């Protein structure tokens, strides 16, 4: 057994996290910053953080992930990181010529109390930031929240910095897609185009973290939200903040700064969440949902009705980020599946509240937990107590899946051992199809493998 020390008996832990279902803020800030065109993320702290974040994002995307670091040593930790950051600005702009540097802090710089905004101001004052270049900054101490919080904080910083308040209103909306994959951002953009609704999306990592192979390393790939678009987002008529955990803060900043009304909606995963999103887009824009989208929807519903027998009643264990888990749980329930064990390391009361709403009675009978010690060790223990037919989560789920011989669908962050997540969306109706394809494949592969020979099916 790969996880041979995990006992079936669940005991409360108050201090030890084992096999976390989250990581720390800065990587989220880095990911968000990569969704701005020409932006170079910068990690203000020890160089190890930056190295870890770049490595993990790289393994997830199999793409170059460029980011600077203030490379603290003990001296900087004692005397403050101002000098390191000033030096960094100088070097970053000289060597890599970014349009924007997006600084995020780390536990180190936060613990010693570096004031990045003041240091940045100093850099501007001292002329260290070239004209026309931008520095944005998010406070992302690793000991608060999770990687999702870090993403949210950087999004909020973008929303605070770029949008310009106008006295006119543009016939366009803002889409804050939340922490989803480049493929998902691409898919949401496609849906918006299909709806004929003009929009600004940020962050937008499509075209950045799924950059084509060209024989040339484009240091700033052509994707990402552009600065002019970001500026214009202040004149949009509405903001869709998708995913309360990752997008609400940015939506609120936009409202505060530019009076753009917003609504927090679920990331459009599954039928119902996508329905609600498109209904709202239609409502806000006056553009009807076109037949082409209606047909897409009909196709995925068709798969569900056709394949219902293989989905019905299947118990599922889920782990990952709240903005994904919430609509995913709703989707599974809509198909009569049974999400029985759910953990997310990301803290926040809303998660349990919303899950209770979605799950109804299943919430009481199921195991749902988020925040501290809502980890994969606990999830595994739950599974040992009530086995499931399917596990959905990031790559780390493969250990449990193998030990317990449970079909496994990779979804979430990070996925280190398969391709697909950056190219095939899980959002929208197309994404629902992908999820179905994956789930049915995993379940049926096991059936095919384990069926006695006389029960081996040709037709399914």
């Amino acid at each position: 057994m790969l996880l041979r020390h995990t006992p079936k008996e669940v005991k409360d832990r108050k201090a030890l996290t084992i096999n976390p279902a989250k990581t720390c803020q800065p990587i989220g800030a880095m990911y968000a910053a990569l969704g701005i065109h020409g932006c170079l993320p910068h990690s203000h702290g020890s160089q190890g953080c930056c190295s870890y974040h770049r490595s993990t994002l790289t393994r997830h995307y199999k793409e170059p992930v460029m980011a600077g670091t203030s490379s603290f040593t003990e001296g900087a930790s004692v005397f403050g990181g101002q000098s390191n950051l000033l030096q960094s600005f100088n070097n970053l702009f000289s060597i890599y010529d970014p349009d924007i540097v997006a600084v995020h802090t780390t536990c180190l710089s936060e613990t010693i109390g570096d004031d990045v905004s003041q240091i940045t101001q100093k850099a501007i004052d001292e002329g260290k930031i070239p004209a026309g270049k931008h520095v944005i900054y998010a406070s992302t101490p690793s000991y608060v929240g999770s990687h999702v919080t870090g993403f949210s904080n950087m999004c909020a910083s973008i929303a605070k910095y770029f949008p310009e308040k106008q006295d006119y209103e543009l016939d366009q909306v803002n889409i804050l897609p939340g922490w989803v994959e480049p493929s998902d951002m691409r898919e949401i953009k496609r849906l918006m185009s299909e709806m004929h609704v003009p929009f600004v999306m940020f962050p937008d990592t499509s075209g950045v973290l799924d950059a084509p192979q060209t024989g040339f390393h484009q240091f700033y790939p052509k994707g990402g939200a552009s600065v002019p678009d970001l500026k214009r987002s202040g004149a949009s008529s509405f903001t869709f903040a998708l995913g309360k955990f990752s997008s609400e803060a940015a939506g609120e900043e936009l409202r505060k700064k530019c009076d753009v009304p917003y609504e927090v909606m679920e990331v459009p995963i599954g039928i119902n969440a996508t329905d609600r999103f498109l209904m709202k887009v239609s409502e806000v824009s006056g553009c009807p949902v076109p037949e082409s989208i209606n047909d897409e929807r009909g196709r995925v519903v068709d798969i569900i009705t056709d394949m219902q027998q293989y989905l019905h009643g299947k118990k599922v264990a889920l782990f990952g980020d709240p903005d994904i888990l919430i609509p995913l749980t709703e989707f599974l329930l809509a198909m009569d599946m049974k999400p029985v064990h759910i953990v997310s390391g990301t803290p926040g009361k809303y998660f349990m509240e919303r899950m209770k709403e979605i799950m109804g009675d299943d919430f009481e009978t199921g195991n749902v937990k988020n925040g501290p010690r809502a980890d994969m060790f606990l999830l595994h223990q739950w599974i040992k107590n009530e086995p499931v037919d399917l596990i959905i989560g990031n790559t780390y789920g493969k250990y449990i899946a193998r030990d317990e011989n449970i079909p496994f669908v990779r979804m979430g962050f990070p996925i280190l051992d398969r391709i697909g997540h950056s190219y095939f969306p899980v959002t929208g109706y197309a994404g629902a199809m992908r999820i179905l394809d994956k789930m049915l494949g995993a379940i049926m592969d096991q059936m095919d493998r384990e069926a006695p020979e006389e029960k081996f099916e040709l037709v399914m």
Partner: protein
Amino acid sequence: MSFEKLDDTMMKTYPTKVYRKRKKAAMVNDPGEVKEIQANVRTIPGIITQRGCTYAGCKGVVLGPTRDIVNITHGPIGCGFYSWLTRRNQTRPENETSENFMTYCFSTDMQDSNIVFGGEKLLKDAIQEAYDLFHPKAIAIFSTCPVGLIGDDVHAVAREMKAQFGDCNVFGFSCEGYKGVSQSAGHHIANNQIFKHVIGNDDSRSDSKFRVNLLGEYNIGGDAFVLEELFEKCGIELVATFSGNSSIDHFANAHTADLNLIMCHRSINYVAEMMEVKFGVPWTKVNFIGAEQSAKSLRKVGAYFEDPQLISRIEEVIAEEMLKTDEAAAKYRPGTEGKTAMLFVGGSRAHHYQDLFAELGMKTLAAGYEFAHRDDYEGRRVLPSIKVDADSRNIEELHIEKDPERYSQALQDRKAALMEKGMEFSDYEGMMAQMEKGALVIDDISHYEMEKLVEVYKPDVFCAGIKEKYAVQKMGIPLKQLHSYDYGGPYAGFDGAVNFYKEIERMVNTNVWGLIKAPWSTQSAMSAKYARGKHAVASHT
């Protein structure tokens, strides 16, 4: 290609201060006249670097591969998360129930309240919970950045808990990420604590005649498995490997070996040095990367023990193994001969792997380490002349004394006698002495320099790590990770050499790079405009 031109291309964009500093870290090699290179100095802030931190070097590299220690990261969740199995240190527990915590990640997941009020209580509770859940032999605590800053005394906590448990060795590492200038500091810290808390805890001694330790072999891709098998074939007992496929029990017993063999000089020489001072165990540098070097290293062991039977057995094994490698080289070399490589990685791999490339008939155009010191480049002879700067001074230097009871004068006498005969001990010649004249050596290469280097030199294969991989590959050049082997390997020993030949042959000869350019990017495609009948007339230019 002259260095001047390269310097121009590679560093001209740098601000003056950066240029001045980086210039000292890059030079054209002359093995006849090894020059001083800048190494083990601070990374310049804002430079995109390969380097990681002290925590990574301590927890990830040295202790990570040991399966039966519960390694608790004391800090916010990220550090533990990122060092959770993301390198490929393989381990093979004795049996299906024996301890293996490699697949687990343990963390105190510090929250802001812990930063404000201190995290010692949290740490104690976490250790207690780990003990209650697993009853492990040992629990190790790794400090992350904020721990040092807020002043948690992990060593005191460790002592207290160890005393309380009685049957569990608990020890801590002050390996905060900001200590030192790279992972290297973490190695040193790991060496120190392992030496203090573990090595020498078990004096039992098997009755086999040839007992050695292998130091600085981390079982990436199963390298240690290959070497274990090789040693066994030769009749040599591996008392402990630091730390590939290791158990803390092996470490405890390591001081009873007759000889320490060092693979990765950078990460582990401290342990070898300390063991020699305290226990009298001599050390010698070996290299099991490449068939020739593996043979040479085995012969070194034979020479050390001066046992005719052993020596003859070693020769038999070498002869047998070389059949495989010769055959493989003959098969793959036609595809690799004359091709070129660059290696920028680690603290010894950039050196060792040059031998493998040589066996493939490939030229190493440029190489450099990520976290090495000057001695790894220039050889240990420069040790006395290395200035200890503020960053290095932060790392504890243990004061070790001869163990009056366990010190082996006999081994030291043997060493002295063999040195008389010309055998080398306690030495490492460094990379530069073995590299070709005219090749380029660059320490702590920056991303910027790397891209320029690839652009100008266009090597057939580039060796580095995951952060570099896809940027280089976007340029149409295959990159071989030598941290994780791209989840291939093993590459050590003779079997490993065969694997490596095959892998490199694949990489430098694959067709897939030819797919990059779309035909319309080089041809003018449009000719007709819906003109009937003209379809047969192509306008390809």
